[in-house]
């Protein structure tokens, strides 16, 4: 039954990519295709006084230049709010800036030419006269009454605020033996996908059909968006996402440029291609994080965590992203605080503020790294205050493995987690006693090493209460069509999508086990709204848990269909048959009764030989929506060992450990690779990645020469272990794993750096932890020590 589920099957499409046979939108060329280039605002805020396109329109190869007046009317503006975020505001957005420019990089004009080079040359000739205004780029003061507004179409800079609290939180703080506190800053960073955002929009006026080839993780969402915002019948809109060169949540948002490509194709009746260059990616792809968090933790004398209080200010863009908003990250930050712990009381305040920068929104591990870093840094302070060590305080406070179901102080319902088992396993892997001894010995030689750990909870398999309840047309269900070909081979068309994480491989494994075939006989189609059923696709760690369950149930329906047919053919009760080894076999003895290809042959070519009335269709369609718990939470713990050079501030990442529980593991190879990739994307922003802006709202490091990404040589060896606690909500029992690595890697690393710096009394509370910030922290600690 589970011959292939649980096996380290290699990723089927990796061979194709290795052979250079990937098919990306960036490579697509269609007849009569035009290339789009956007003229962007060089200012963070201002009023457009005029746009002179005359010289540009005379440039060679230019077919058309659009400004807001002639492009925007084709598109219904979009508004990035959700109904369940009460009181949220965000002004409407359209493709090109109309009167105001709102961030450096805001598209102002769109040039369509025969080649990208010609379009760029023409863009150079467009003169945009912008009267610049003082941009809003700061923090707290922007929320004070009367502050200058980032977006004059909003009534203040406050996009959204929320307060979450238990009735006894103040009493918990008042009665605490210790209260530890700190302020934290989490810098902006961005996805930096290998393949930038890419779209080819192809409208055929003769049929009224719009086909959009797009490097996205959510084709069905874009089918809906294009139909509604351009007034097209949904059935006339097809979105195809072929190979996608990385996505990480960044490619599911609605962007001005993709909407512009569609609008231009609708107007011109020609294919329009837009592929972002790296600088454009930096000034138009969503950024993530940008939070200032102040946190307090109330602790009893014995180290019991009593309560937390959090104030999170997050600065987004001048509008909230669409359709998932820019408030969801802050919302998850305040709800994930303290999630692994028994802690009874909590107060979390969230303020989401507009500013004149690129909009922020969902990116891998939405909110998790922030909630985890703040919680785990405060837990370390609580340990210090109560004389516990890092493992001891967590053992005392983590929810016991037999205490489920459990509801967190912030209202999350946990079905069953394994924090204590993970902690014990990590302790065994890290051997903290040996690490402490080594640390002491090295300190004597002027070498400063430290280790840190961080427990985490990850949100996976979200149900319809996540977005659907807020009015967003974002599907929480998925669909699969599974069919047997006449040869007995299997095909599965499914709505979860593939961006290199191996979705198609695990779906083949799941389907193969339901139908008693090897995964090599199962081909999987994803990413095309015309050939696969509608569903949520890829976001929030749902591919394995929801997509896998969808495939499993569809596969079982086809199995039952095949067995019924086989029962008629071999004149046996279908209940005594099962599928194995590519054949129908006797359930009790395993003796072959009839091969799948024989059933396929008869059902397809000789249905006339079947008994009257028997259903010989070998195709089933099934949709699955998660029920039961609103989310299937996962959990785990990470450890980090670092060495800090206190003369230069450089950190060497020596080792990283992860113990993770994602429920049923479908493919251990791919799960481990998801975790490793996630850890790297957690360590990147902890040490290197930051979108830096000056006071005028100019992004000052918009290239990979200045924006540092984690490189293989800087990354530590990552040791991974698993605990398996399958969810009972599904037959498959799988939960998500894509964001687990990112959730806690930075938190563990920050604790490790601070452990290394403990002899100096220096403490980092800002990411990325650059050498300069480490030296500044050492300097501040030195000054404090020598102050009178």
């Amino acid at each position, binding site marked *: 039954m589970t011959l292939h589920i649980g096996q380290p099957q290699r990723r089927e499409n990796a061979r194709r990519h290795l052979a250079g046979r990937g098919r990306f939108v960036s490579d697509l060329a269609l007849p009569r295709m035009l290339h789009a280039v956007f*003229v*962007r*605002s*060089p*200012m*963070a805020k201002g009023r457009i006084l005029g746009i002179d396109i005359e010289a540009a329109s005379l440039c060679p190869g230019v077919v058309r230049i659009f400004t807001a007046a002639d492009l925007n009317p084709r598109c219904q503006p979009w508004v990035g709010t959700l109904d369940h975020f009460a009181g949220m505001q965000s002004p409407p957005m359209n493709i090109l800036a109309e009167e105001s420019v709102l961030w*450096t990089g805001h598209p102002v004009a769109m040039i369509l030419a025969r080649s990208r080079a010609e379009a*760029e040359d023409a*863009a*150079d*000739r*467009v*003169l*945009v*006269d912008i009267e610049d205004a003082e941009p809003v780029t700061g923090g707290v003061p922007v929320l004070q009454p009367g502050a200058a507004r980032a977006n004059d179409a909003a009534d203040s800079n406050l996009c959204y605020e929320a307060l979450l609290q238990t009735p006894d939180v103040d009493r918990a703080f008042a009665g605490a033996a210790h209260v530890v506190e700190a302020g934290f800053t989490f810098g902006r960073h961005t996805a930096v996908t290998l393949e930038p955002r890419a779209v080819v929009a192809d409208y055929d006026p003769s049929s009224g059909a719009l086909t959009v080839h797009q490097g996205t993780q959510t084709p069905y969402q874009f089918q809906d968006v294009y139909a509604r915002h351009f007034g097209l019948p949904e059935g006339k809109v097809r979105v195809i996402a072929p190979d996608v060169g990385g996505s990480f949540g960044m490619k599911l948002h609605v962007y001005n440029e993709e909407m512009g490509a569609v609008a231009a194709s609708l107007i011109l009746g020609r294919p329009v291609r837009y592929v972002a260059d790296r*600088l454009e990616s*930096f*000034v138009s792809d969503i950024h993530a994080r940008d939070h200032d968090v102040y946190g307090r933790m109330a602790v009893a004398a014995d180290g019991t965590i009593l309560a937390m209080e959090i104030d999170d200010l997050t600065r987004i863009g001048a509008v909230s992203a669409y359709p998932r908003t820019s408030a969801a990250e802050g919302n998850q930050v305040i709800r994930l605080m303290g999630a692994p712990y028994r802690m009874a009381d909590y107060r979390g305040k969230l303020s989401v503020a507009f500013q004149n920068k690129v909009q922020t929104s969902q990116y891998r591990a939405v909110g998790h790294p922030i909630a985890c870093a703040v919680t785990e840094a405060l837990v370390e302070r609580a340990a210090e205050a109560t004389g516990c060590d890092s493992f001891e305080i967590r053992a005392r406070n983590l929810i016991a493995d037999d205490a489920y179901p459990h509801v967190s102080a912030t209202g999350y319902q946990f079905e069953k987690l394994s924090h204590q088992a993970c902690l014990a396993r990590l302790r065994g892997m890290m051997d903290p006693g040996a690490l402490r001894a080594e640390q002491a010995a090295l300190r004597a030689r002027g070498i400063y090493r430290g280790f840190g750990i961080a427990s985490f909870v990850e949100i996976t398999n979200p149900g319809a209460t996540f977005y659907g309840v807020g009015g967003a047309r974002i599907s929480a269900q998925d669909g699969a069509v599974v069919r047997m070909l006449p040869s007995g081979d299997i095909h599965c068309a499914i709505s979860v999508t593939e961006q290199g994480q191996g979705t198609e491989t695990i779906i083949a494994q799941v389907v193969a086990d339901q139908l008693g075939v090897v995964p090599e006989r199962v081909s999987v189609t994803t990413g095309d709204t015309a050939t696969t059923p509608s569903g949520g696709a890829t976001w929030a760690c749902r591919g394995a848990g929801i997509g896998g369950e969808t495939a499993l149930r569809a596969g079982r329906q086809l199995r039952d269909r095949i067995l019924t047919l086989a029962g008629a053919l071999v004149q046996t009760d279908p209940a005594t048959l099962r599928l194995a080894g590519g054949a129908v076999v006797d359930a009790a003895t395993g003796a072959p009764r009839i091969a799948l290809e024989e059933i396929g042959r008869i059902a397809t070519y000789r249905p006339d030989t079947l008994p009257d009335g028997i259903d010989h269709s070998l195709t089933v369609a099934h949709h699955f929506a998660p029920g039961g718990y609103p989310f299937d939470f996962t959990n785990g713990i990470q450890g980090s060992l670092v060495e800090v050079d206190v003369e230069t501030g450089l950190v060497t990442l020596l080792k990283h450990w992860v113990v993770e529980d994602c429920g049923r593991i479908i493919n251990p190879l791919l799960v481990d690779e998801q975790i490793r990739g996630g850890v790297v994307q957690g360590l990147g922003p902890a040490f290197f990645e930051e979108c830096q802006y*000056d006071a*005028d709202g*100019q*992004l*000052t*490091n*918009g*290239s990979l020469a*200045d924006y540092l990404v984690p490189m293989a040589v800087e990354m530590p060896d990552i040791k991974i272990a698993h605990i398996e606690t399958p969810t009972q909500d599904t037959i498959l029992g799988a939960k998500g794993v894509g964001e687990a690595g990112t959730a806690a890697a930075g938190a563990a690393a920050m604790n490790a750096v601070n452990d290394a710096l403990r002899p100096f009394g220096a403490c980092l509370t800002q990411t990325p932890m650059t050498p300069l910030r480490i030296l500044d922290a050492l300097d501040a600690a030195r000054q404090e020590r020598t102050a009178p």
Partner: protein
Amino acid sequence: MKLEGEQFLNADPMTVWAALFDREVLAAAIPGCESLDQISDTEFAAVVKLKVGPVSARFKGDVVLSDIVPGQSCILSGKGAGGIAGFAKGAAQVTLTPEGTGVRLRYDADVAVGGKLASLGSRLIKSTAQKLTGAFFTNLSEILAAPEAVGPA
């Protein structure tokens, strides 16, 4: 971004002063200047081609002279748009102080750049601006040293 510096010019203050207001001298001295039109006594419109690191652009801009104390000081302010390359704007206080046989010219400027220039060239902007300023004064010195360059005032 603050830029400051000084340059000794071997000419009398009024000659230097006149040169600073002379369209032809300026056009010859400004690095990359493609055209310079005098709009009024104190206003110029310029087209300048510049390269900062990987970004090269043709800037169209206006330069205005204000707070004029003849022979001694003035404020030069300007802004230029460089299309997709971005923009630059700034103001410089220029003072002339007689020194020996010539004059010491001092400038204190505050310059801001935006768009692609800021995103791609931030590490290079200051050094480029200093290089361009140096080139301007070298050109100016050379023009002042050639007697025929400065026409009758």
